[in-house]
């Protein structure tokens, strides 16, 4: 058995693809092109092993002295690989990859003269064979035979890896400026002109146009993935006016099902899934928004360059547009481990960035850049240096889950309307406070009765809050402190303050909600939770003396997440993994009370210091804490605390010689505003305002998975960080061998001049959370003048061609490189790419352009001549029927049986009873939908451009026995057989119309009617409940199982 060989391809200078293995050696001068074996990587690895073990000693012992060592006889040296390949005065010494055909081998075997070594016997047979094998494997060196022999080799490292010659090979060339050929007839469709020019050369012509049923079915399945409705078909068949076909296409392109059909093609390319894969395959809530983005963008005919830009950097192009953020789901759709040990952190991160880069370049540029991770790309002009510079685009790119308002404009309109109305209530309260309240307050003050009010809870004076990790605190009017800024994984707050009270018995710690916190708090964790791993209290007399820890007992809280590791008791132990948490009581005030083991005696004032440690979980810090103390034995969670300032004023009023006169104007105002809450009149106006406040419109927040910069990363069980601060060049792809920091650039072969990356460099506005690197990448990629835009256009028009004609003009749509297939019609491809760009990158006009050609409309008839002259149909001499993909098969069955639910968008489901289109199945990597897999839906692991279409028995079993399929058929039978008066031949005819969009032939009708009768009889004899219904179901199930249903002509 032979290894598969591609048609031999040649690649000039690039033939020496040694890259890192042999240092930065390059051939000079005009070398004959060398065909590249497909198994190059393996051969080189083997060859290198041979070199190290056998060949190096062999060459040194027998050859080097005269050829590159002491002498260089015959102008031939083999000290370096470069020398060896250059040959000597007599010509080449070896033929790369051809051991037996190499002169060197013949000479050392003494099969040709001059015999080598020049004195003595031929080399032993085993040595000759080893040498020959080594040449077969590409004759790799790991280092020159003599240290320092390589003239231009620097230290081996990716940074020094080869710089390619620009624009080598067809895909890197700018678009050719091309006009369609004159055409066979004067006014030929441009696509036909290209196709017919090639056919004519071969003495072939296009087939005749297909009939209208075939045409509309073909178009409908291609554009919608569903059959045409009988009405649409009827109208089209009757429409004899010019432009009927164009109108039919336009009408299909305008339907919302179009996006659902074509999004699925792109989702294969984007390796889209909604879970992480690996150990736990965690769901990624909000990931389905990316799928919806693709559908919406295709339906709206979003320009393709924008479609690409948003997927790479939607957050950098349009940070306020939710759709643009959803688009970035592209980058984050790959697999990622859920459990990462300490020594896997770096490798895992490089793998994750590689996934982003490899998918981006395969999907958008049709290039297998991933090959350059370990060594310069063997076939395409992509050096390792380019790989790492490009990879650095994603250095700080992470998956984030965000709560987004999907309709910010509407929210703003509602908010403005509310504010206008709310101003009335606030005005009323203000008026009361200015006109009525002062009089009432004076009366209270003079009466003196209320002064005796005493607070259950007292707040400390002169509080100072500090955060070990660097958060800052803002003092709030109610005595609480709002944590802001730095939100580290773990933190310790320290607050100290003073009290003059004596006999203190307990401490209360409150965690207040605040709109600035996630989910309104009360914690700073992503979900609003908190996790207090430890609380400690210290007391120190103000007069001096020792600071002593106050022992806390009897912990209790308004709510505990559980009564084990997340209980309030856990905040008193030494274990940093246990402590008070409050999930799911988000957005509400929570409080905890700790009794002091012995009441604190106090003469002359105490300084209390409270330490709050948060290590239970990442960022589970209290967002707006408030602490207070009490000397009561039974103070409750909820009783009011009196702010220290008010307590002081009340104290002055009560003190001997005190009274209202001692208050300054501002102190009076302060006291009035504290007192007003007990005034009935104020309460009334206030409650009205509060009641109205409850109606304040809140944006509907939706969880969206995006992939960008500046937002907390979606964390896994990892023993390390989410990203590395810098991306390094790696030797042979190993994170243990770093070779300097890589700064962003793009593929040199697709830049007007190497190292001109600054041209696309985009600086984000000051304060933006992102680096601008992804937007820079997107700008380069969509730049048709100096960047990669021409290749981007070629790759997407080829994908459109692929799905309309069954095979791309380039048959390997993800690989336009040297190893991929060559374009069958390069001029047509370039012209189409040009049309796309000239048309503002809109895809629908290209669909229309392709489908209006006779090439698309011709029949699938095959003739002997066509088979001989165009065996693979690469010249497009006929149409080729194709089998529908998994999703289209299931959708079509649902449609035929009348079971299809056309609800678009939103979360998907894993439930196979769903009757929505198959694109709305949740793609969970560990639970792929069997009905999709059995019909060749790919595993969403890497970018996939082409699906196979296998024929295996489990597909048949699904149609025969699957309960859902049977249920759909039964439902169809139920709906259509209730009219007992209907003739069975009429019923059969309408079933054929529905399933196949045609009437049965006389034979089919006869066979089907006969079957109905006999099958009914069978069920009757077997005593089945409803023999007619069962038989009708059997027939309908048969119709949806027909080849004709899933093979579209």
């Amino acid at each position, binding site marked *: 058995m032979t290894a598969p060989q591609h048609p031999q391809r040649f690649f000039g200078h690039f033939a020496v693809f040694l890259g890192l293995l042999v240092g930065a050696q390059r051939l000079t001068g005009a070398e004959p092109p060398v065909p590249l074996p497909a198994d190059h990587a393996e051969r080189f690895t083997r060859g290198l092993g041979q070199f190290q073990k056998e060949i190096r000693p062999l060459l040194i012992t027998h050859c080097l002295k005269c050829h590159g060592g002491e002498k260089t006889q015959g102008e031939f040296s083999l000290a370096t690989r470069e020398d060896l390949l250059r040959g000597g005065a007599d010509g080449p010494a070896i033929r790369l990859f051809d051991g037996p055909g190499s002169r060197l081998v013949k000479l050392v075997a003494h099969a040709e003269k001059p015999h080598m070594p020049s004195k003595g016997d031929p080399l032993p047979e085993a040595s000759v064979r080893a040498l020959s094998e080594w040449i077969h494997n590409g004759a790799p060196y790991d280092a020159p035979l003599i240290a320092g022999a390589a003239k231009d080799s620097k230290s081996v490292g990716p940074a020094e890896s080869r710089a390619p010659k620009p624009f080598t090979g067809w895909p890197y060339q700018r678009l050719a400026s091309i006009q369609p050929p004159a055409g066979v007839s004067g006014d030929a469709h441009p696509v036909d002109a290209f196709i017919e020019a090639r056919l004519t050369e071969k003495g072939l012509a296009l087939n005749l146009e297909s009939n209208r049923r075939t045409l509309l079915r073909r178009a409908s399945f291609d554009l919608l993935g569903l059959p045409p409705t009988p009405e649409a078909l009827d109208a089209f068949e009757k429409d004899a006016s010019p432009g009927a076909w164009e109108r039919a296409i336009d009408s299909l392109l305008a339907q919302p099902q179009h996006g659902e059909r074509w999004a699925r093609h792109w989702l294969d390319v984007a390796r889209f899934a909604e879970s992480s894969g690996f150990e736990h395959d965690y769901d990624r809530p909000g990931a389905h928004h990316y799928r919806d983005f693709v559908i919406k963008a295709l339906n709206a005919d979003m320009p393709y360059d924008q479609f690409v830009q948003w997927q790479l950097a939607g957050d950098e192009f349009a940070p306020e547009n939710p759709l643009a953020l959803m688009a970035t789901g592209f980058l984050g759709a790959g697999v990622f481990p859920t459990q990462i040990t300490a020594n896997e952190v770096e490798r895992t991160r490089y793998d994750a960035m590689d996934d982003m880069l490899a998918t981006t370049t395969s999907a958008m540029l049709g290039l297998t850049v991933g090959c350059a991770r370990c060594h310069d790309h063997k076939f395409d002009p992509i050096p390792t240096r380019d790989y790492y510079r490009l990879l650095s685009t994603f250095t700080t790119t992470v998956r984030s889950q965000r709560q987004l308002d999907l309709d910010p404009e509407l929210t703003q309109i509602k908010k403005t309307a509310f504010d206008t109305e709310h101003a009335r209530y606030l005005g009323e309260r203000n008026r009361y406070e200015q006109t009525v309240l002062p009089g009432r307050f004076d009366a209270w003050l003079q009466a003196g009765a209320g002064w005796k009010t005493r607070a259950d809870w007292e707040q400390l004076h002169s509080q100072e809050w500090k955060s070990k990790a660097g958060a800052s605190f803002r003092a709030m009017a109610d005595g609480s402190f709002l944590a802001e800024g730095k939100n580290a994984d773990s933190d310790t707050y320290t607050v100290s303050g003073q009290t003059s009270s004596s006999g203190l018995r307990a401490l209360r710690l409150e965690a207040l909600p605040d709109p600035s916190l996630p989910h309104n708090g009360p914690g700073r964790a992503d979900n609003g939770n908190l996790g207090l791993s430890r609380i400690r209290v210290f007391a120190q007399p103000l007069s001096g003396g020792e600071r002593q820890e106050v022992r806390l007992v009897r912990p209790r809280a308004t709510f505990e997440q559980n009564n084990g590791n997340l209980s309030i008791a856990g905040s008193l132990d030494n274990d940093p993994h246990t402590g008070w948490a409050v999930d799911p009581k988000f957005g509400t005030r929570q409080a905890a009370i700790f009794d002091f083991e012995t009441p604190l005696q106090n003469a002359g004032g105490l300084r209390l210091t409270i330490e709050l440690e948060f290590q239970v979980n990442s960022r589970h810090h209290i967002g707006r804490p408030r602490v207070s103390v009490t000397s009561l034995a039974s103070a409750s969670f909820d009783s009011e605390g009196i702010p220290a300032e008010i307590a002081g004023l009340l104290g002055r009023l009560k003190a001997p010689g005190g009274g209202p006169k001692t208050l300054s104007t501002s102190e009076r105002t302060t006291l009035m505003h504290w007192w007003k809450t007990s005034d009935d009149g104020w309460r009334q106006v206030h409650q009205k305002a509060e009641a109205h406040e409850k109606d304040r419109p809140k944006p509907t927040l939706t969880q969206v998975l995006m992939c960008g910069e500046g937002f907390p990363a979606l964390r896994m069980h990892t023993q390390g960080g989410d990203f590395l601060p810098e991306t390094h060049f790696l030797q042979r792809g190993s994170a243990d061998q770093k070779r300097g920091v890589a700064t962003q650039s793009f593929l040199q072969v697709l830049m007007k001049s190497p190292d001109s990356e600054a041209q696309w460099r985009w600086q984000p506005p000051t304060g933006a959370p992102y680096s601008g690197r992804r937007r820079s990448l997107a700008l380069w990629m969509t730049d048709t003048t100096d960047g990669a835009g021409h290749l981007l256009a070629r790759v997407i028009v080829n994908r459109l061609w692929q799905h309309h004609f069954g095979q791309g003009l380039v048959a390997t749509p993800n690989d336009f490189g040297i190893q991929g297939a060559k374009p069958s019609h390069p001029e047509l491809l370039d012209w189409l790419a040009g049309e796309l760009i000239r048309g503002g990158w809109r895809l629908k006009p290209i669909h229309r352009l392709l489908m209006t050609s006779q090439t698309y409309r011709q029949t699938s008839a095959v003739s002997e001549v066509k088979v001989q002259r165009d065996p693979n149909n690469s010249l497009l001499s006929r149409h080729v029927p194709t089998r529908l993909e998994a999703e289209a098969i299931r959708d079509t069955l649902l449609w035929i049986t009348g079971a299809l639910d056309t609800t678009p968008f939103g979360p998907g489901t894993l439930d196979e009873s769903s009757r929505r289109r198959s694109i709305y199945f949740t793609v969970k990597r560990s639970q792929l939908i069997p009905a999709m897999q059995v019909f060749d*839906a790919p595993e969403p692991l890497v970018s996939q451009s*082409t699906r196979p279409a296998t024929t295996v028995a489990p597909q048949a079993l699904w149609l025969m026995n699957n309960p859902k399929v049977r249920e759909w058929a039964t439902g169809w039978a139920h709906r259509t057989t209730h009219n007992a008066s209907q003739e069975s031949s009429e019923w059969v005819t309408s079933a054929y119309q529905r399933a196949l969009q045609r009437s049965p032939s006389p034979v089919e009708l006869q066979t089907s009617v006969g079957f109905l009768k006999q099958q009914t009889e069978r069920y009757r004899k077997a005593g089945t409940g409803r023999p007619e219904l069962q038989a009708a179901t059997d027939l309908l199930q048969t119709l949806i199982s027909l080849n004709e249903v899933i093979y579209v002509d």
Partner: protein
Amino acid sequence: MNPNPALNHPLSRRDLFRRAGHGAGLLALAGLLDDQRLLLPRALAGPTTDPLAARPPQIRTRAKSVIWLFMNGGPSQVDTWDYKPELTRRHGQELPGFDKKTGFFTDSVGPLMKSPFAWAQHGQSGTWVSDLFPNLSRHVDKMAFLHSCHTESNNHSPALFMINTGSTRMGFPCVGSWMTYGLGSESRDLPSFVVMSDPLDRGLPKGQASNWGAGFLPSVYQGTWLRPKGDPIDNLHRPAGMNAEAQRAQLDLLRSLNQQHLAQAGSEGELGARIESFELAYRMQSAAPDAFDVEHEPDHLKRLYGLDQPHCKHFASQCLMARRMVERGVRFVQIYSGGMDNQRSWDGHEDIVGNHRGFARETDQPIAGLLADLEQRGLLEDTLVIWGGEFGRLPVSQKGGNPGRDHNPHAFTYWLAGGGARGGVHHGATDAFGHKAEVDKVSVNDLHATILHLMGLDHERLTFFNNGRNFRLTDVAGDVVRSVIA
């Protein structure tokens, strides 16, 4: 249908692209199908290429099937097959120079811990076996031991992917998929590659179905996972109310209508194949349940496997099913002992004694029964039996009330039996403590190369072109371990 139509009926290049997809990957399949002579015009093509049609091996061999007994979680080599008296002598001492990041838990590393099990020599080969395997120890002369295996990750999921697919990353085809791709299936009415997991609600191995996924190979080559409860395979039962006669009549109608369409559409290989696939499906409805049904096996055989023993009934039943399947031509069967991790599998982080005793009791008699049964039927020569997990365990203890052992990527033991493996040999060795493979080290690539070789496949020639290059199970490495081949 012709058992191997591909070899007789050329098909078009476009057919190839479409059928097996993945672009030029098909060319590799074409290579396996003897290349260019097959690439004839579509209209002249006969019946389709059945991607599962049996294909001749690349290397002469007797082995036809594999049964891989996967000891999930990582069994301890020093407590099973790798006898280390030095470990006993140095019990309780520190292991000098030990890197605390070797295992999963960096903060609970204890000193060297002797094997808590009793060891004795068995068989002609004098193989040392711990008393975990009183039944299996009677079969050591059938087993070829690879004591010096090592892998690349200390974490379950990457290590499972490594041992199953040759890469620690997710998304590569597993051994069973490669083998089915290379050899096709000998069975017309059963899946070619079958996986059984723990039926006692202890979960799937980490990474789940990716361990038997086809990666970038066409999805027909992925493993068929038998559901441990309920119907093992989907869609085997006729719809409610339909008897065999009614379904036969329905399929006859389908056939007749499809034939009429075929006559109009001209000779279409794929259409013909699809007509046949319904017949095959019809037969599978009875063939598959029959293969899975162990209840009708004779009592003495059930006892041989341990079906009468509550502690090992589940694994015994899976082993017996495996035999029934390979007997019927199934190419590759993988059975996982244990569920997800920790005490639910061989992952003995704590209480190595309780953990390994438990899982050894579940598997010892069933596997011994399988080996004996295969041998007496003459099937052992045709069937390669593989025993092992995703990594080994450390010779130092993992601290705790009942000490356990943490993950060890540097050393573990595999054994092969039947299928051309040389019985009673021991290849390679670990250091004095069983900590690291030292002599004649066997990488996972080497292990895969050896398994493929025994099955008649050359690991360097079994390739698939994907995203720009030829991929192999063994990437760019791997040497066949010759000493374990008979």
